[in-house]
């Protein structure tokens, strides 16, 4: 099927056209980073207003880039949750309007389900696989048995990995978004320079904790004020990043060894981080696991990834009506309920 997909759950407004859940025809992402930068984070009121301003041109651009009109679209996919109601509703309302006006099937997709399958736009991964989703709001390990069949193996008990990057960047007085800045500075530093904790590293679980690491950086900075430039800053960034990577790698390894599964997918915004990619690559080489990480553009929030599970559901006859509402709270492992229809 040729699907038009829409995503507006957080900072990005995005629309994409995808053929058969595998071939990306267009993927337009309007980032709100510039609008948010002065605030050091997302201001939800700005977020929903900006989504509203750009949603129509973004959809038009997605169709134009794919050289298609709405006549050629066979179904509509939209991120239904979780996220901020005001932001989600902009995408959902647009999706419902198009589906209703054109008589097209519509399906709402869980945002994280999109991340799990983003890599399918570049390569097919056999089931089952282990997925590590790392972003500002998520640090979760899932066992993926198929579309709609997910089990949570572990998750963060406090801060998400991306949140730790952003908060540490703020502690160090670095600009937003902090993750990319820390990655760049860390590449010039010595990752063994500052001893930082690796919380829950050897607790035997697949759970994560990054709040203690953030606090350790804070305590270090209070005792050793770091100049905003130069070697000391680079070393601290490198040491912090290495601690995050060590924990992510060790937990992914536990999940793989525990389940005996030999395929790992890493997704979400933090999967853009160069040290995360290198660490996962090294791990998978050592233990003989097939590693799949989407290109950076598909790691960040985007609409194309939403079309992948949507293709599956629509083919199964699973669809939503125009009464579909935003699900601000939506645990991923409850998605399977729709499979019993």
């Amino acid at each position: 099927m040729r699907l038009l997909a829409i995503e507006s759950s957080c900072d990005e407004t995005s629309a994409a056209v995808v053929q058969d859940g595998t071939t990306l025809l267009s993927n337009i992402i309007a980032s709100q980073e510039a609008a948010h930068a002065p605030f050091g984070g997302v201001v939800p009121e700005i977020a929903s207003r900006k989504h509203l301003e750009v949603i129509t041109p973004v959809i038009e651009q997605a169709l134009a880039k794919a050289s298609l009109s709405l006549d050629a679209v066979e179904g509509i996919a939209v991120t239904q949750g979780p996220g901020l109601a005001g932001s989600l509703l902009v995408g959902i309302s647009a999706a419902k309007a198009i589906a209703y006006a054109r008589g097209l099937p519509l399906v709402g997709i869980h945002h994280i389900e999109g991340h799990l399958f983003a890599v399918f736009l570049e390569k097919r991964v056999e089931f089952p696989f282990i997925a590590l989703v790392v972003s500002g709001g998520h640090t979760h390990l899932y066992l993926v048995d198929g579309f709609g069949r997910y089990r949570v193996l572990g998750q963060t008990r406090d801060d998400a990995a991306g949140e730790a990057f952003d908060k540490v960047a703020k502690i160090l007085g670095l600009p937003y978004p902090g993750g990319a800045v820390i990655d760049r500075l860390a590449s010039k530093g010595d990752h063994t320079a500052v001893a930082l904790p690796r919380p829950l590293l050897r607790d035997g679980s697949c759970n994560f904790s990054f709040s203690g690491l953030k606090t350790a950086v804070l305590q270090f900075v209070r005792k050793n004020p770091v100049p905003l430039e130069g070697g000391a800053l680079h070393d601290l960034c490198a040491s912090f990043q290495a601690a995050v990577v060590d924990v992510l790698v060790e937990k992914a390894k536990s999940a793989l060894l525990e389940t005996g599964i030999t395929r790992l997918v890493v997704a979400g915004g933090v999967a853009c981080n160069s040290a995360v990619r290198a660490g996962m690559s090294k791990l998978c080489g050592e233990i003989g696991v097939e590693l799949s990480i989407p290109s950076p553009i598909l790691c960040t929030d985007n609409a194309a990834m939403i079309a992948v599970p949507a293709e599956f559901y629509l083919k199964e006859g699973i669809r939503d009506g125009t009464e579909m509402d935003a699900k601000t709270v939506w645990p991923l492992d409850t998605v399977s309920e729709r499979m019993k229809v």
Partner: protein
Amino acid sequence: MPAVVSHSVEETAAIGESLGKLLRPGDFIALAGDLGAGKTHFTQGVARGLGVSPDICVASPSYTLLNEYTGRIPLYHFDLYRLDGDGDIRDLGFDEYFSGRGVCVVEWADRLVSELPEEYLRIEFILTGDTERRMEISWNGSRYGKLTAELVRMHPAKA
């Protein structure tokens, strides 16, 4: 100003749990203090005190802004960390939760200005050592004065 002192992350959660056990629907707890001061750990304790299952992770809502939990009483865990500047919180519809059937715990609550309910308990977390935290308690409304007295009685400062 009444205060309690915690010497560890675990003690911070235990103090939160004591408070959680005393709460009832409609209560509003405003938390303030720097990054790494223990606001999320405290809220994890409040969740346990409200009967949220220990199997449920009460994680930071910094990105999601609001996480909801089911317990003896529903818990609405807000985090306004990313609301720097003049973001208009009223547009988010959060005030609908503030007088609802659950307990609201709001991190970075000082970013609420006119939206703060008339009666509330406010706890400010102060870093006084590597693991030591001082929690200074203020309030508006007599019910919260009684809650404070009870919490201080349960967690007296060690000599």
